């Protein structure tokens, strides 16, 4: 049986990808950010997951303004890095796990989550930056990836409660997959940031850390945070944190903290990172 063995939360700021690609990850600006991922890189190398269900948002790359899926799951065999306006990032192609992805897609639909299924798409920094943060610059990514794209751009975006419930359904789906697979789920994006308007540059260290606290243990209070609270407290793009709740929901009733990191700033954004495991 496949199992979700751990959950990872991480920001996915595009500038982090630039830092990796240009070899700047230990300079004065980026060093303190990447230092907080060293523990995770070693842990990933030791635990060797087979598959990562990678929850992220597409930033107007694979999806344009025409079609706006609330929850979309990638069921293909491979995905290329998207050209986001400056040419594609020179990272390995992302290998999918079509058998598991199709199983999850079918299970979720039967579980009343009306998923959009994607066979072919390019994946942008939302997906490739977390891979770089966790795995560095390998010739080939050491895991297969099931991309799960969430609309956090056009309102209304899904509620925190719906995201958490989707995570719970993903856990059930994974556990009904017959093959023995070590599966992680990653929730990416955030933490506080606002990329638009005169209020741009808003960061909120205190609120972000309360949110990280809320992911640990057996409380489910975070699923009830309304959109407006993310927007007022953490900036317009802080809403991406609802994606972390899919990860948290998939870990079951209670979690244990393995690692945590927080740093301000990276470009416009507060960097948050957490590694959790389910408590049986």
């Amino acid at each position: 049986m496949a199992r979700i063995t751990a959950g990872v939360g991480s920001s996915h700021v595009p500038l982090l990808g630039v830092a990796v690609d240009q070899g700047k990850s230990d300079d004065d600006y980026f060093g303190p950010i990447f230092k907080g991922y060293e523990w995770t890189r070693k842990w990933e190398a030791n635990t060797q997951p087979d598959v990562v269900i990678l929850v992220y948002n597409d930033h107007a790359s694979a999806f344009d303004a025409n079609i706006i899926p609330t929850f979309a799951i990638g069921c293909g065999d491979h995905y290329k890095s998207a050209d986001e306006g400056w040419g594609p990032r020179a990272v390995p192609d992302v290998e999918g796990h079509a058998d598991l992805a199709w199983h999850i897609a079918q299970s979720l639909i039967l579980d009343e989550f009306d998923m959009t299924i994607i066979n072919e798409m390019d994946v942008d920094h939302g997906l490739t930056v977390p891979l770089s943060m966790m795995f560095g610059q390998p010739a080939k990514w050491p895991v297969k990836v099931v991309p799960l794209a969430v609309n956090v751009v056009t309102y209304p975006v899904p509620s925190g409660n719906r995201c958490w419930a989707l995570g719970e359904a993903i856990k059930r789906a994974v556990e009904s997959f017959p093959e023995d697979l070590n599966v992680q789920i990653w929730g990416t994006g955030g933490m506080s940031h606002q990329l638009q308007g005169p209020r741009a540059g808003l960061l909120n260290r205190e609120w972000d850390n309360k949110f990280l606290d809320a992911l640990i243990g057996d409380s489910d209070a975070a699923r009830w945070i309304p959109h407006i609270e993310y927007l007022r407290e953490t900036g317009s793009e802080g809403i991406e944190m609802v994606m972390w709740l899919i990860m948290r929901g998939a870990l079951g009733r209670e979690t244990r903290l393995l690692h945590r990191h927080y740093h301000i700033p990276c470009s416009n954004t507060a960097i948050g990172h957490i590694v959790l495991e389910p408590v049986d």
Partner: protein
Amino acid sequence: MSNNDATQGKKPALNIHEYLAELDDIPGTRIYTAARARKGYWINQFAMSLMKAENRARFKADERAYLDEWNISEAAKEALLARDYNRLLDLGGNVYFLSKLFSSDGLPFAEAVSTMTDMTWPEYRQMMLDGGRSAEGNRSIKANLAAAAANKGAN
């Protein structure tokens, strides 16, 4: 985390009109609502087209001629030519789409974002290094107006 009914594990009742009104109560912010998405559809689709190298080259060769191929209002074309991003947000542009234009210009994301604030790029960069903009006083237009009125009354 707010300590309301919601945190007690109760699913909050939601009124769509109140929900949408709250989204417009944040100072200096244009939440990308369905209404804005409808208004700015072709601005965003134009920006999206810049993800292709051949389109970027055609745009750079003659920006006005390239824009004239799109069903975009004159006001929006002028805002695009002027890179007036706050105006573009008002016209329904979204920053993730508009960022294709930053990238085509070779402008770092944060520098482009800084042009929407009242700061220069070095000032904005320094603000971020110093911990960013505080949420204090930036949460609610209504609350700010009420505070200003109360303050005036007190004087």
